């Protein structure tokens, strides 16, 4: 019981201020988005409607946690920028480190950049932004 109380206190301390909460949430949000996009691209090189739904749900929940609309928008921009960078790196890295014969060695990296951008932009980016805004509004009302 005491241990649970201590853990709860630590979590409360970790999330005590809005800045601390953002410092925790942005990496979590980025990892969740990257993992969701990556698991789909690793398997099919494309996203299913379920994957897009999952991404929208992540943004919605993140919006609820942030609550503040301005902070949510800034966090969202940071998250998407880092997610895009991480995805391109994760997908391209194995292609660049394997000794592929030409021209595949050059084309795979370009292919993944295009795949990532067509997967994220523009509709999913806008949809996720809307989900974040709605989440922030819901959070403001109920939390």
């Amino acid at each position, binding site marked *: 019981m005491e241990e649970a109380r201590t853990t709860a206190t630590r979590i*409360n301390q970790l999330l005590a201020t809005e800045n601390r909460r953002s410092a925790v949430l942005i990496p979590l949000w980025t990892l969740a988005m990257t993992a969701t996009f990556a698991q789909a691209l690793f398997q099919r090189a494309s996203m299913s409607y379920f994957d897009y739904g999952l991404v929208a749900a992540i943004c919605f929940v993140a919006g609820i946690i942030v609550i503040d609309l301005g902070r949510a928008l800034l966090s969202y921009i940071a998250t998407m920028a880092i997610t895009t960078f991480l995805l391109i790196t994760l997908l391209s890295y194995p292609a660049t480190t394997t000794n592929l*014969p030409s021209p*595949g060695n050059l084309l795979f990296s370009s*292919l993944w950049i295009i795949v990532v951008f067509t997967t994220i932009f523009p509709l999913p980016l806008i949809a996720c932004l809307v989900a974040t805004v709605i989440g922030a509004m819901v959070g403001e009302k109920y939390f």
Partner: protein
Amino acid sequence: MLPIKTSKRNLLTIGFAAFTLAMLIVAAFGAVNYNRFYPAITQIQTRILTLQTISLNNIIEVKVAFAVKNPTDYQGLSLSHFGSTYSVVYVMSPTNNITALGGNLAYPSMTGALNPGTTFNVALATFNITANPTQMTSQTPTMIVFNFQPSFILSTFLNKVSEVIPSYDCTSSGDPAVCDQTGLTLITSSVGGGPGGGGG
């Protein structure tokens, strides 16, 4: 345990962290398989299974069969649209070779899974070549060497965005031979003006 002094918002953050962890585990499994993809496509082996020549007067009938093998443990590859070009080198003497460009070998449309460790045998192709490239002198070649450049479409998880086409180079004068991978071409489909193919 935790809800003792934890707000709904903090609980939601904890739940979000747990979900993130779950998604990371799912993505990690995908990443492991994805990391095996590139070594797999470079290690796909193509070889000349049989190369038979039958002399018919001034014509030689050539029968060639190829085999494609996935020696890796990567699952999810299959083969389609096997094709090959060939050329013939007539070795007339140690210092005199005559090269004849052959053209394309006709293959029926075929598809087959390249499961780990399994070999896919490509249908036999037959073509004719002249037995004597120098009709005027009637000098017969001491050896005939065949060069094949097979390639095929490798169906992968990338099918929605790109076709992967490995190409090989095989040289044989009649014996089974292992082909060298010479190139890897990508042909993009639905990702717009993406990177196009190119010869290896």
